[in-house]
């Protein structure tokens, strides 16, 4: 019985099957009601499945919710972070460099003013003359020699040496020398601190520059009182 009905739905009834099928419908009530039941079932399933498809289509009409797919955003976030940090670095960098050029000037020769009269020049005179005339390589060499022979002038000579290093864009060496000075004595404190802060500035280390300037601002003896405050202000 069910075989025939199944064949009907499969659409595989042969001609003889069809005759048999018609006969059963007319003569067998159970067959007829079973067939009608399955017909009804088919209709209900069709409507059910169609509704299922239709409701899935209706999703296409809904306004698109922008999904924040975090994983998709990662590369963009990475690029953004990179640019932002580069911007910070360059901004900071250009800022400190600008400030450095604005504030840095070589410490003038106040130790041995150039005298035209004297024919016989001491090494010290020669060194400072070279310094004043801008022959920094020679001056540096002279200072080096002077330092070993003249312990008492060591601190001030170091300051001039640091100046030359700063001028020749070697702030690291300047820092070493100036730090050494600060550890050894309290003399020339304001010059030491001032040029140390500028050396940090040149390196782009505005934090250390600020720290040094803060120390300097507490000094009563400060040859760059005004500049210390205005530079501190600019670094904030």
């Amino acid at each position: 019985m069910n075989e025939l009905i199944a064949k009907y739905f499969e659409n595989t009834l042969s001609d003889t099957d069809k005759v048999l099928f018609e006969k059963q419908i007319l003569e067998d009530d159970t067959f007829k009601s079973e067939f009608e039941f399955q017909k009804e079932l088919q209709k209900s399933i069709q409507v059910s499945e169609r509704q299922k498809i239709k409701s899935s289509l209706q999703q296409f009409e809904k306004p698109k919710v922008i999904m924040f797919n975090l994983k998709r955003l990662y590369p963009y976030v990475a690029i953004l972070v990179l640019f932002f940090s580069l911007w910070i670095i360059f901004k900071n960098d250009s800022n400190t460099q600008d400030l450095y050029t604005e504030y840095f000037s070589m410490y003038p020769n106040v130790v041995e003013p150039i005298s035209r009269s004297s024919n016989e020049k001491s090494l010290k005179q020669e060194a400072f003359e070279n310094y004043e005339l801008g022959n920094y390589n020679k001056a540096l060499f002279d200072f080096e020699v002077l330092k070993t022979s003249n312990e008492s002038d060591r601190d001030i000579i170091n300051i001039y040496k640091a100046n030359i290093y700063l001028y020749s864009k070697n702030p690291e060496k300047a820092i070493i020398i100036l730090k050494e000075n600060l550890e050894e004595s309290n003399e020339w404190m304001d010059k030491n601190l001032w040029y140390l802060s500028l050396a940090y500035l040149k390196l782009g280390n505005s934090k250390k520059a600020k720290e040094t300037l803060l120390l300097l601002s507490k000094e009563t003896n400060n040859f760059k009182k005004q500049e210390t405050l205005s530079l501190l202000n600019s670094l904030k």
Partner: protein
Amino acid sequence: LKSKLVKLIFVKVYFYSPKILMSEKHIVELIKSNHDPTIQSVYLKNKLPFFKIANGYKIPNEVALDIYQDSIVALIENVRKGKVDDLKSSINTYLLAIGKFMIFKYLKSKKYVDLDSVKIENIEGLDAFSVENESLNLRELMLKKAYESLGEQCKKILNLFYFENKKLDDIQAILNYENKDVLKSQKSRCISHLKKIIKEK
């Protein structure tokens, strides 16, 4: 993985470059496997052409949208039934033919037009096509509810047999049944379960 990749490439090509015609057979296969992006692209692609036709008959937009969605449902149904396997025209042409038929059916129901007087391509199985619960009698409505409450396996078998009109041999292959008898008895168990639910009500 390979077939997945091929699928993906085809869909991308179809979706992003309408001028490159993806083989219609592939679209049919993708719709058959219920591939959502393909269905969506067909849906979006033909919406405007359909609305132009519907607007020509002054059909309100909400009604037109409803008819359009019914047309897509009919398309998917016919694809799943394998009626579209030897399609001569493109999917889009076929869909718009269904759409036109549906529009005329609607106009006829509203007595705006005599369908018989208009020459329109008849599409098999669409005369009695309905998505609405209203087309069902009370017992059918109960059957529909009962069907929806069945377990997944029963639903699969009954869907394949009564909706997609698959032969038992095919269903046996699709659902990996060892032999046809196991499938047959499973199917009759599902049906008697349905009958039981109906009787209880």
